[in-house]
Structures are given as C-alpha cells and as structure tokens.
C-alpha cells in the first residue's frame, strides 16, 4: 500500500537529498557548537560520572 502512496508523491527523490542536507548542516552546527561550548559547562558535564551523590564532590545544582 505504501508503495502507491510514495509513488504518488511528486519528486519523491528530492526528499532524501533534502534530508541529507538538513543532517549535514545539523552536524556542522553541532560540531561548531561542541568545539566552542562554554568550558565550564563541558568540564562540569565531564565530571558527572565522578559525582555519585555520595558526598564526595558537590552536586552541580548546588
């Protein structure tokens, strides 16, 4: 059934290309953000596994 539905869409082949472009750009933006993100935030996130809530190190919400 979905065969007919998909066949009835005009220019169905353009959608994968658009999808790819969206995701490629998502990556560019993501990488740019990851590389320029606030150092404090990055350090804080990196420390997260080492804080078990057992009082060793303070919780980030404090």
């Amino acid at each position, binding site marked *: 059934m*979905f*065969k007919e539905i*998909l*066949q009835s869409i005009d220019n*169905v*082949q353009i959608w*994968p290309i658009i*999808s*790819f472009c969206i*995701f490629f750009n*998502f*990556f560019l933006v*993501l*990488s740019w*953000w*990851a*590389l320029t*993100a*606030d150092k404090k*935030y*990055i*350090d804080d*996130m*990196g*420390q*997260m*596994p*080492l804080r*078990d*809530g*057992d*009082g060793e190190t303070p*919780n*980030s*919400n*404090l």
Partner: protein
Amino acid sequence: MELEKIHYDNKIVKYFIIATVVFGIVGMTVGLLAAIQLFYPIANFDLQYTSFGRIRPLHTNAVIFAFVGNAMFAGVYYSMQRLLKTRMFNDSLSWIHFWGWQLIILAAAITLPLGLSTSKEYAELEWPIDIAIALIWVVFGWNMIGTIIKRRERHMYVAIWFYIATFVTVAVLHIVNSFAMPVNFFKSYPFYAGVQDALVQWWYGHNAVAFFLTTPFLGMMYYFLPKAANRPVYSYRLSIIHFWSLIFIYIWAGPHHLLYTSLPDWVQSLGVVFSIMIIAPSWGGMLNGLLTLRGAWDRVREDAVLKFMVVAVTAYGMATLEGPLLSLKNVNAIAHFTDWIVAHVHVGGLGWNGFLIFGMLYWVVPRMWGTKLYSMKLANLHFWIGTLGIIFYAVPMYIAGVVQSLMWKEFNAEGFLVYPNFLETTTQILPMYMLRAIGGGLYLVGVFIMTYNLMKTAAAGTFIANEEAEVAPMVTAAHTEGHWHNALERKPILFTMLALVAILIGGAIEMVPTFLIKSNIPTIASVKPYTPLELHGRDIYVREGCVSCHSQMVRPFRSEVQRYDPTGAEYSKAGEFVYDHPFLWGSKRTGPDLHRQGGKYADSWHYRHMLTPGDVSNGSIMPAYPWLYEQVIDKEQTAKKISAMRTVGVPYAEEYENQAGADLEKQANGIAEGLKMEGYEVSSDAEIIALIAYLQRLGKDIKSEKVAVN
C-alpha cells in the same frame, strides 16, 4: 540547599548481573560445542536438537541477547540511577523487565533446539516471542524515560544519550524486521521476499550490532571507564560529536553485508561509503576512551579492571576499523562467506563486549557488596587467559578465512579451478577449527575463574540492596540561559524524538527506493512459486538451519560461476528470489553454495548424503539427518502455508489450497518411486522427500527460461 536522601536500587542490578554470568557460561558453552562440531561431527550426536544448524542460533542468541543483553541492563540500571541522581522510575517495571527478559530467553532456549526458527540471523525467534520482546522492550524504555524525567540532574550525561538511542533504534529495528504472516503459532513467513527481505534483514542485523552491542556499551564506557580511572572522560566535546555522528552514520551502512549479491548496485555503494565514514566517529570514541587514561597508565599495570577496559576499547577500535575495510568491495570479495567474518565478530564480541562486561563486573560487584575484590591475582589471571583465548580464537580464523577463500578462487594454467571439490578447501582448514575451539575454551575457563572470584567477593561482603545517597533536588526554575544543545539535553522526550528521526532517515533512504522502484528488481518470467512439496522442503531447510553453513548466492565471479554452475554459467539474479519468504542467501560457507544445486545430483545422491554425509563425501563435516527419514511431512499445514504465502504476495491461484494436497502427493510419489527404482525404499510421506524436492528445484527456473528461448 538541603540535601535529599535517596536510595539507588542495587537489587535489580544484582539480578541482571547473576543472569549475565549464568547466561554467559551457557552461551559460551554452547558456542564451544558448535566449534567442536565443526571438526568433530560426531558431537552433533545424530540428534536433531543438538545438530549444528540449531545449535548455532542458540549460541548467537544466548551470547547476544542473554549474556550481553543482561549485562547491558545491569550497566544501564546501575549507571543511570547514579547519573540522574534518582532511583529507577518504577521498581515494578524494573522487575517486569527482568523476569520478562529471562522468560524470553527461556522461550528461545526451548524453541531454537526444536527447530522453530525464522532463519533470519539474530532474529530467529518466531512471532509470539517477537511480540513478547517488543512488549518487554517497551517496558524497559518506559522505565528509562520515566527515570530520565524524574531526574535530579539538569543535564543528561552523554551515556544517557547512548541509552536513549539504544532504546529507540532497537525498537524500530525489531518491529520492522519482524513483520511476518503467521501460518500457525510456531511458524510464520516474513512479509518481505528475496532482495527486500535481505535488505531489511541486514539493515536489522547490522544495526543490531550497532545499537545492541555498541551504543549501550559506549554509554557504559563513558560511565565506567572514568569511574574506574577516577578521572573525567578525555574530551566531553568529542563525546557529543561521537554520539550524533555515530548514530546518524551507522544506520546507513547495512548493505555492506550484501556486496556482490543481487542487491541493486547503488544500494551497495551507499553502504560502502557510509561504512568508510563510520571510521571517524568510531575511532573518535575509541581515542576518547583510551585518552581518558592519560596519566593513569601506571595503574593499568596493576588494576585488572582497567586492563579489561583498555583491551575492550582497543578491540572496539580494531573491529571498527576492520568492519569498514571489510566493506570495501575488493576486500569483501575475499572475506565474505569465510571465517574471516567469524574472526571479525569475535574480536568485537569477545574483546569489546566481553571484556567491557568483565571490567564492569569486577568494578561494580565489590561496590555493591561493600567490600574489596576477593582476589586481584585471579582477576589478572582471568585477563591473561581471556586475552590468550581471543588470540587463539581470532588468529586461526583469519588464517582459515584467507586460505579457504584463496583456494576457492585459484585457477590453474588451463583455466580450471585447482580445487573444484569444495570439501578439499574445508578439510584444509580443520586444524584451524581445532585451534579456535581451544581459544574459545580458554576464554570460557576465564569466565569460570571470574565467576568463582565474584562469588567469593560477594560472600565476603554484605549486599547493599538499597544504596543510600545524598543529592540536591533539581532546580525547577525555568532556565533561559545556555545554548540550544544544552536545552535539548534538558528535554529527554524531544531528544528521543530527534535520535529517532536521525536513524529513521538513514533507514528509509536505504530501503524505500528498493521497495518502490520496479527496475531495482528485474523480474524473470520463468521464475515460478514453489510447489507445495518444495515449500514443505524449504521449511525443513529453514528448520534445520541449513543456511548457517550453505549460502544461496552465487556471486558474479568467474570462480563462483565455474564452481557452482559450470554448465549454465549463471550467477544469482535478483529476480530469482521474488518468492523467497524468507530469503536464504546465508552469510557463511562452511559447505558449498546451493543456489544452483537443482539437478546437479540424482535424488538418490541426496538421499544417501543426508543420511550419512561422510560416506558420500569422504571427510565431510556435515551432520547426519536421520530423523528426516522417520518424521513425516505435516500435510495438515499445506493449505495454511499456501494461503499465508499468498497473503505475503506469492501468486498462488485462488482456491489453490484445495488442489495443493493432491499436487504434493503426486510429486512426492514420483520422487519416492524414483528412489525405489534405485534401491532406496522410503515412504513418500517422509520429510526427506520434501527436502529433496526443494534442493532439486534450487536455481532451476532461470535455466528453464533458457530452454524456452532456445
């Protein structure tokens, strides 16, 4: 701010750990049996329940879903509570998840030896169990998302992202790949046929490796490795890029399992390109793991936990470099269908999954029992025996794979195959199979040592069922600051949806066109649906797991065409499989390809061969199938099978069900009479008759077209 007292649920983790160890031992023992059967066929015991074709799926399912699966749940339940500073969302859901999963494993352990199998690799379980898996998986996801929502930590650590991706993707993979039309409670036919079934299956198979064996373990690596090393991950920035690029790219690469097959060329190329691209995120992740140990390498010398983790991450790096290389068409031409692939998956399975699990268990068990590890010496011994086991497993398999492949392809000066008898190439590598069993045995011995060590550790301590922790409540005020990705990490549902979209796009682009465009699968007019007797025979072929050792895919190489179809010179065409529900292309040739088997030998040859393979082919390692001569064809199912096949698109005429029984009898009597004339008395009801009918049909349709043209 006032601290809140909460209790982490360790009991559920403990149960998953026990299940991990028990099923690890069971799954690996079954694997060892399968390894022994390959050089010592007597170990098939001439029993249908223990023959290789049924034991192999039992091994793969046990180690993947029971051993690795339970370990994944143990790791997720342990780390998630601590990373989100909360107990699991709902204890009842945790326990439904646990017992539901174990019941599924039990069902698999009963049905697979009984031969109730779909034959689709790592998705062999029949439809009622598939439904149970879907339900229990949803319980797991519900519990997980619930826990994330009630967290006390504003941001989700990268490990949690990997867990979310695992949940959504496995759900999608499992559901899409399991679409099937039931014939009865124990048997179904997949909705897809031939090329499409192959594409869906390997989209599933490839991504099961990605999202069942890789992403949850990367999440665990990002939690347990920093814990064990007591230092934060090398680069959190890198882990963000690692996550998104890995889940996006992985999903596209499935077709690399089907290179040189009848799959459309463009899909194959797409698979290759994305497979090469995966090296980047995989190695980014591996380096991130290894570099976490910067400045702590001295501790690796003493600490068995770190040793296991270092080898695990290294094995991950090796397997994820090897995988993309194997997906290059020129490498794949040599490696596919050989033991090279077996080596590759075991570097991943024994090295990455196994060793990360062992490292995690050695780290977590002493903490949960409030004590120290019973013996670091034994843990180190386990490490060395395990490592030796991996080497003894992998190296002989690499040698076996390359040697056999080169023998398959070797031509002499006159242009003939040097080893026209397939069996010659198998007997050549039997010593390697023996070494492999030793490797597997060593690895298993290591697991026994670990079990003893962990039990002693638990006995020396007191189990902390509810571990107390003091945490700050989550700040509920609206957060307007921060970047969009920070905001995303605070919105788990949206995050889950985005991860879902990322994986759906890759899957859809790969599959939709193949389903859609007619020209992708050129039809061949002479290819007709199977007769009722052949259909029964095909189902016996599926039941006995023949596909574990025999491919049905003659690749377009001169060496393969000459070996498998010297007279017709036809490689396998996509149009030949349009009525194959399921496809049976196989992924490994322990025996020869069977796609051009029809008419190659007399019925009596098959009759004798299935009864005593060693007598017909001297030195054969194929199991004997004596039960096929005693069991009768289940004719009650004939009409149901025809009608189920018609539902999934095979063009049997309306009302053919009423005619099918008579057609079956006629064809069966013909084969039985032919055998009788050659001196083999057998009832026309015997299952072997149906199997012979099927084997004699294989690959013949395309030849009848030629006859018609001539």
